[in-house]
């Protein structure tokens, strides 16, 4: 569904992505794990069209996305739930959802989709006229997911959905991920919380210093070993030996 080949992105002189290649299959949950500063969020922003890559290709259902605007990418059926939520703080919950449906013109379906979101996230329904900036972190995360879903994406990208949230809220977020997967939405998730991510994912990648260093299926490798590789820099330590 999503094929990334040799993708490289830089902020000025800082090379954040150094040729990333990975694939997210349809009807799967694919996870990308890795420590802070590995380039995970840069990858997500590049996929969404916010950042322009220096080279490489991103194919979504066979179509090249590099060079398209964020609006065109959303219209193709791929939406990003950004890191730190980034809901519109001064707009109400309902207005945030309406904003999420910006590329759609089917007003009746938009309205019924909003009601469906309120059914799926009852706490958003209770706060629909409240400004999004007054919501708790967990509620904002739900709103960010709901806002992205309002564009009816076939592939949902999520950047660190669990960051800064209480364990119970994290569990809630991941149960939503499972639900969406069952409903046929494909997901590509960037996570630091490896335990949670490996529970929902069918396939995972490990990213370090701007490139993919490892990939596999959960279960092939003990979670502890994986986490050690991802966050304790075992690979890096090995590599630095001559």
């Amino acid at each position, binding site marked *: 569904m999503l094929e990334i080949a040799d993708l490289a992105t830089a902020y000025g002189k800082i090379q954040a992505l150094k040729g990333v290649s990975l694939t997210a299959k349809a009807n799967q949950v694919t996870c990308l794990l890795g420590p802070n500063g590995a380039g995970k969020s840069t990858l997500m922003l590049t996929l969404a069209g*916010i950042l*322009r890559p220096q080279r490489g290709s991103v194919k979504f259902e066979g179509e090249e996305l590099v060079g398209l605007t*964020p609006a065109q990418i959303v219209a193709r059926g791929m939406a990003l739930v*950004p890191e730190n939520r980034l809901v*519109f703080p*001064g707009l109400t919950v309902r*207005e945030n959802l309406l904003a999420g449906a910006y590329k759609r013109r089917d007003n009746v379906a938009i309205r019924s989709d909003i009601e469906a979101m309120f059914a799926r996230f009852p706490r958003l329904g209770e706060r629909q006229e409240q400004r999004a900036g007054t919501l708790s972190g967990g509620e904002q995360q739900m709103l960010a997911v709901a806002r992205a879903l309002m564009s009816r994406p076939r592939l949902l990208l999520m950047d660190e959905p669990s960051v800064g949230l209480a364990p119970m809220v994290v569990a809630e977020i991941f149960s939503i991920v499972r639900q969406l997967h069952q409903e046929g939405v494909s997901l590509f998730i960037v996570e630091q919380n490896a335990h949670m991510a490996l529970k929902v994912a069918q396939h995972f990648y490990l990213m370090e210093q701007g490139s993919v260093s490892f990939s596999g299926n959960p279960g092939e490798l003990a979670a502890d070993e994986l986490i050690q590789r991802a966050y304790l820099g075992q690979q890096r330590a090995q590599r630095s030996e001559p």
Partner: protein
Amino acid sequence: MTQALQLLIDGVLSGGSYALVALGLSLTFGSLRRLNLAYGATAMLAAYVGAWLHAQYQAPVWLVALAVVASAILTGAYVERLCFASPRVDPTQSRGLPVAGADGQEVVALASSFAIWMQLEQLAVNLLPRHLNTFPSLAAAQDWQLGELSVRPDRLLIGLAAVALTLGLAAWIERSRAGLSWRATAELRIAAHLVGMPVARLQAVGFACACALSGLAAFAVLSLDGQVTPMFGMWMLLKGLVAAMLGGLGSIRGALWGGLVLGVAESFSQELWGAQGRELCTYGLLLMVLVLPWQRLRRGPLNAGFA
């Protein structure tokens, strides 16, 4: 008593003009989170085009009005391209910070719009080198008498237009789909990109609307005065800024309230302490708004946005 009432009426009516002037400025700040220092100069140059048409070709009033608004939009497009055109999102600055656009670009926009201000002023002086140029007025200024009170009909018309425009614009921004996308873009540009909004185009359109309003305001004020000088740009920026800040910069309805408060305050202080007292009062008000931690102002730039 009658005198106080007359002063109030005069104040409210000139407040209408101030509100009109503040509206465009507030709209620019609301949609871009940037201050446009070339705001007054843009409108002044547009007014000069109108005055030139009037002097050279005896253009009728409606044509002058149209020319002023059109030139304000054109000049505004020039200012927007040079100072405010949306840069590519830099996620190193905007990521993770749900705070409206406090970035280095603001300083660049401020400084460059000041340079454009000077440039436009010089352009106007070159177009019509005389300091004072006549500007056509809306109608023969025969005051309406209501007992001992008097009202200038064109002033009344402009005051009503200011109220209608403000309330209409505010309602449109709150209710319409386009208004929603404007507010969203102003709040969090990166998120607006992510939901698929054409951010650069929305901001350019918002800027053009603000410039059209500034042209309208310039025409209204100058048609009351019957003359235009190169100082008009400065006047418009100052009065507009004070009125807009009184009401909370970036707030549409606030521009109306700010304009009215400023108008009434000026009208009374002029009567009590003369012209210098009036100026003192204006800047006193501005200082008060800046110093006092008003809820309204605090809300202004961040949340109220287009409220």
